[in-house]
């Protein structure tokens, strides 16, 4: 297991470096003078030259990149053009709301998705299966922002049960988490169903049934436990989808998280914030995948021996 851990960690480093290289290149991909773009269109000549020095844009590229890595390692993310606050502080304030939103959404997605998937796997071809299949394709095709608006219309504007947006109490979580998690629940339901059906055809399941294990035992111990292993990997991948989806859902519900900060920054062309956010999202996603792979290695010895 330790060797697997090392191997997997070593594999992550090049990806992280490449990601940082891309985010570093970001400023240089902007049309026009990067120092002018970062300083803002109405910055004075001195301000532009200060930014050029601060970002080392007057130094050779390789030196800029090394310094960039060094700054990232020390969480020196620069200052926002719009508010002049340190970017690290802004991101720090927005991190937890997004974190909790994705976690609560994921819990909902796993419960609904795996539950529906198993139900349709057990009663394959039955009414429950067909309903779940219909619900899943609907969930994948439903625009999350539309679902959010429809719910807001119903439960906030008409019934007045839930707050229309913002962050604070449990009530604030209900609609955003449901909206964000539903598409993931749909994907998980489809995947769990096929994983379940695949395992149900294995010889050991037939053996268990033929030697007289009660049906409940066949389902829970022999089929489900093995079917859920690949679901772990999917959960990790879907976390990425949630992080991306949060960007849209936070906009709908005025959620004070990283996603809305990113959209505001893009509209305002606040490049230091955009750069830091893109890096953060990518690094988070890579690390979640790493954790999932390690978990997977723990439950499935076959993987770590490969």
């Amino acid at each position, binding site marked *: 297991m330790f060797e697997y851990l090392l191997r997997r960690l070593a594999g992550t480093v090049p990806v992280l470096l490449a990601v940082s290289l891309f985010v570093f290149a970001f400023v240089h991909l902007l*049309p026009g003078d990067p120092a002018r773009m970062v300083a803002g269109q109405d910055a004075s000549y001195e301000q532009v030259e200060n930014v050029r020095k601060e970002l080392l844009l007057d130094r050779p590229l390789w030196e800029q990149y090394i310094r960039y890595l060094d700054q990232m390692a020390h969480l020196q993310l620069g200052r926002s053009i719009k508010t002049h606050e340190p970017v690290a502080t802004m991101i720090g304030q927005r991190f937890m709301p997004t974190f909790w939103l994705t976690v609560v959404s994921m819990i909902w997605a796993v419960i609904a998705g795996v539950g529906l998937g198993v139900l349709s796997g057990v009663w394959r071809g039955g009414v429950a299966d067909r309903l779940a299949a219909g619900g899943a394709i609907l969930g994948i095709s439903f625009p999350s922002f*539309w679902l959010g*608006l429809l719910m807001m*219309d119903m439960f906030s*504007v008409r019934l007045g049960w839930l707050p229309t947006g913002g962050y604070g109490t449990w009530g604030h979580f209900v609609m955003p988490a449901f909206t964000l998690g539903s598409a993931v629940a749909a994907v998980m339901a489809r995947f769990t169903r096929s994983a379940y059906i695949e395992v149900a055809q294995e010889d050991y399941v037939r053996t268990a049934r033929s030697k007289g294990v009660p049906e409940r035992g066949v389902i829970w111990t022999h089929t489900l436990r093995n079917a859920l292993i690949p679901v772990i990997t999917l959960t990790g991948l879907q976390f990425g989808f949630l992080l991306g989806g949060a*960007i849209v859902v936070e906009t709908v519900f005025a959620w004070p998280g990283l996603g809305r900060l990113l959209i505001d920054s893009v509209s305002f062309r606040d490049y230091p914030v955009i750069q830091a956010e893109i890096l953060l999202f990518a690094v988070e*996603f890579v690390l979640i995948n790493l954790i999932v792979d390690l978990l997977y290695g723990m439950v499935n010895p076959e993987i770590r021996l490969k």
Partner: protein
Amino acid sequence: MIVPTIRSPGREFWRRFQRQRVAMVSLVVIIVLVGAAFLAPWIAPYDQATPDYDALLEGPSLVHWAGTDSYGRDILSRMIWGGQVSLTVGFLSVVLGCVVGVALGIISGFFGGWLDGLIMRTIDVMLAFPGILPAIAVVAILGPGIVNVIYAIALSAVPVFARLVRGTTLALKETLYVQASRSIGVSRPKLMLRHILPGTLPAVIVYASLRMGTSILTAAALSFIGLGAQPPSPEWGAMLSDGRSYLGVADHITIFPGLAILITVLAFNLLGDGLRDALDQKLR
């Protein structure tokens, strides 16, 4: 003498596809949507851009089937024109992403070695940016607007096609007919284009259909958050964003464009599922 009947794969596929009623219905829905979008100048009951200050925020009626928006513009007409935007953006971004992805996938699988390593590692890095993020990054660089959205969404489609096609190419490279062609000296470009590319197409078509749904959804989302089509444009996501201010007052502004997105995306997803099942019976 018994003559074995060998059906052409294309006809066999069509026969299996036709048996899938849901997918057939989806195909018809898509044809109707595309037809409506491109006949917009003739079938839209009103001019989509002309305000009517005597008919602000009117609910659905016989005069305005889907009601009017805050400028008194006819929502049905705007939805029909908006279909042009959404379907064009979806189609162009999928075609662009597909062509680049397929080319990278075939080159990667066919040549192998360091080129394969380079392309696949690049793809890995692209996949490290989750969901809608690569599209937002591209918009942040190029600026908001519907044309940039096409590039942005095309870019996020590239890795999916590249991986898919690389896998098929690796398998096809070892088949007898490709090996035989190679042994009689068929050139490498010809091997890739004439012998390998056709074999990858079935899976590519399935993915392209599913991807159309995703792309239309992403484009609408970008317009909704203000990074895609800009206001007077009747893009569906932009219309929804407009309706946000009138929840509880004029729900139809929010309901109809959303319904248009849902129906379109659903049709492409169901079509993709049907195509996949018709192509590969094992997957069911």
